[in-house]
């Protein structure tokens, strides 16, 4: 089966600019996650979708970050405006779920964001 696809792989922008990331999960996976992974740390959940509804976005900085999952498939994560501390790898993952938290997550290779 095809894995989780993410684009772009790398992005360099200046602070205060905007940026968007795209994710296409594994076909049939109901749950989609966006994580922020800062260098030297574990992934931190930003937002979790189940189909096209938000399950949890408690750790999403909503003043600058937004995400959507239209039609319950692809998803985009946007940052506007970007800050220096947003430099990180943004990982997308999907899992079969819904409601069955014993399912492993399948990760894309991430987007490495550098803020100048």
């Amino acid at each position: 089966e095809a894995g989780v696809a993410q684009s772009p792989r790398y992005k360099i922008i200046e602070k205060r600019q905007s940026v968007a990331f795209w994710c296409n999960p594994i076909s049939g996976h109901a749950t989609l996650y966006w994580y922020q992974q800062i260098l030297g740390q574990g992934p931190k959940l930003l937002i979790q979708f189940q189909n096209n509804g938000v399950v949890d976005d408690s750790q999403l900085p909503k003043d600058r970050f937004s995400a959507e999952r239209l039609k319950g498939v692809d998803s985009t994560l946007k940052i506007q405006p970007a800050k220096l501390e947003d430099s990180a790898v943004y990982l997308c993952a999907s899992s079969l779920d819904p409601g069955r938290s014993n399912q492993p997550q399948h990760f894309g290779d991430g987007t490495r964001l550098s803020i100048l």
Partner: protein
Amino acid sequence: AQSVAQPEDQVNVAEGNPLTVKCTYSVSGNPYLFWYVQYPNRGLQFLLKYITGDNLVKGSYGFEAEFNKSQTSFHLKKPSALVSDSALYFCAVRAGFKPGGSYIPTFGRGTSLIVHP
């Protein structure tokens, strides 16, 4: 709040020797525990999970993990390390049901495993 601790930033082991990567957790209720591996510039790959049943769980690439409820630990092990096992390893826990929501995953900081030839 749930949490995961990986007390070692780095583990060094000689090829052919057994390896252990430690993980302890804190959670309300019964935990679902996972180990993932991350190679440079790649996403995380699932290795194994504990949901219920036998405390010793076997996973991919010869890895196994032992669930210890009394010590709230889930250490990753392999009887004989390979140089190709060198990577970053993450422990994760899911629990803490939120009404109307789902179980939220929490990851540890990661442990860098270095296997020397």
